[in-house]
């Protein structure tokens, strides 16, 4: 049996989870740049991606500090391979269509806003500062993704069909955001972060309200794909994403501008 995690090792894992979620989702959303259905949506998606990548710099920057191996946020983003990523599977699934992209954004934003609300009260001042800063941006993301989910869900027959199939596809990826393990237990004990499982009731209430307004049905299944946040098994999609995101640093190590 492996030795139990030290407090700094657990904190490092926690910070990777926060930063990898925003990094991978930021990259996914940025794939829409120049391809969105209308100009306003293109700009909105690019701005959302930009916020998420900016947030990543803070989370992974702090992760590098805690790790103590002199690694920058860029080193962590560009020089790790699939098995070292700690994002939930939800954020790495492909964009597919605009509806699925916005549904994924909504399902993530809802969790993200609740999580950051708790982290603003973290016993670790560095974490509460990042949470206070980023929660303002995330509240804005949630307002937009929720409005769009309602607009498209309660829209035409065609848009409704896209949104329901997006929800059906993504629903099995929701449960992982609320899974708890020894990293979370260490964070709870130190007053750094809440137990993920404890956020579920608020989450269900929030998404229940919005999805009802969007006339969408939440699938009747509690099955959850897992393996992203603990790095045991990512989907095949993450490797493909990294080949694009990391190619420059892989091809020209240390390149900068």
């Amino acid at each position, binding site marked *: 049996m492996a030795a139990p995690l030290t407090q700094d090792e657990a904190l490092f894992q926690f910070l990777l989870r926060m930063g990898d979620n925003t990094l991978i989702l930021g990259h996914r959303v940025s794939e829409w740049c120049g391809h969105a259905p209308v100009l*306003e949506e293109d700009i*909105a998606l690019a701005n959302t991606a*930009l*916020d998420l990548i900016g947030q990543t710099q803070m989370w992974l920057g702090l992760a590098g500090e805690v790790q103590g191996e002199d690694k920058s946020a860029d080193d962590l983003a560009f020089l790790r391979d699939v098995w070292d990523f700690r994002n939930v599977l939800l954020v790495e699934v492909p964009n597919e269509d605009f509806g699925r992209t916005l549904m994924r954004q909504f399902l993530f934003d809802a969790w993200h806003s609740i999580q950051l609300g708790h982290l603003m009260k973290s016993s670790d001042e560095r974490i*509460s500062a990042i949470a206070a800063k*980023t929660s303002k941006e995330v509240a804005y993301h949630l*307002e937009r993704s929720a409005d769009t989910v309602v607009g498209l869900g309660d829209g035409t027959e065609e848009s409704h069909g896209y949104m329901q199939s997006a929800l059906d596809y993504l629903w099995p990826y929701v449960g992982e955001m609320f899974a708890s393990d020894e990293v979370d237990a260490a964070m709870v004990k130190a007053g750094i972060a809440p137990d993920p499982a404890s956020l579920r009731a608020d989450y269900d209430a929030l998404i229940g309200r919005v999805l009802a307004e969007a006339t969408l049905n939440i699938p009747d299944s509690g099955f959850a794909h897992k393996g992203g946040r603990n790095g045991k098994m990512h989907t095949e999609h993450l490797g493909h994403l990294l080949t694009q995101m990391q190619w420059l640093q892989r091809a020209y190590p240390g390149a900068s501008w």
Partner: protein
Amino acid sequence: MSQLHEQPSVDQIWEWLDAVPDPEIPVISLVDLGIIRGVDWQEDTLVVSVTPTYSGCPATAIINLDIETALRDHGLNKIQLKTQIAPAWTTDWMSEKGRARLEEFGIAPPQAAGGPERCPNCKSTNVTRVSQFGSTPCKAHWRCQDCLEPFDYFKCI
């Protein structure tokens, strides 16, 4: 560029910084924007605390460079820029002068109500939102229903 023999006062430095334009909205200064949070002498080093606007704002690096360049042009050599993320930047820190200049320039200043008070061009209050986002992370896109001009609104956060 001149070498100074005496330390300029903190007030003097605030004045210099108030002449440094925001790189993306050059009608307002970095001081107007409310992102300079502190100017202090620590022995012979000038420490300037800067708070970022949006986490991913690409202007942040340019802003730091502009501050350093301006201060060096005034003869200061030992400058330390500190990024301060708490308390988080809010548009409440924008100066009245900055708000007025934004409107003159055609950008509606931030309002607590969450949308522009009026069209910056014809002053009509009959305005509608086009998109929650705009040309930079700090702006949203609106349109006047009377003069029909689209305009930027500086988001309130």
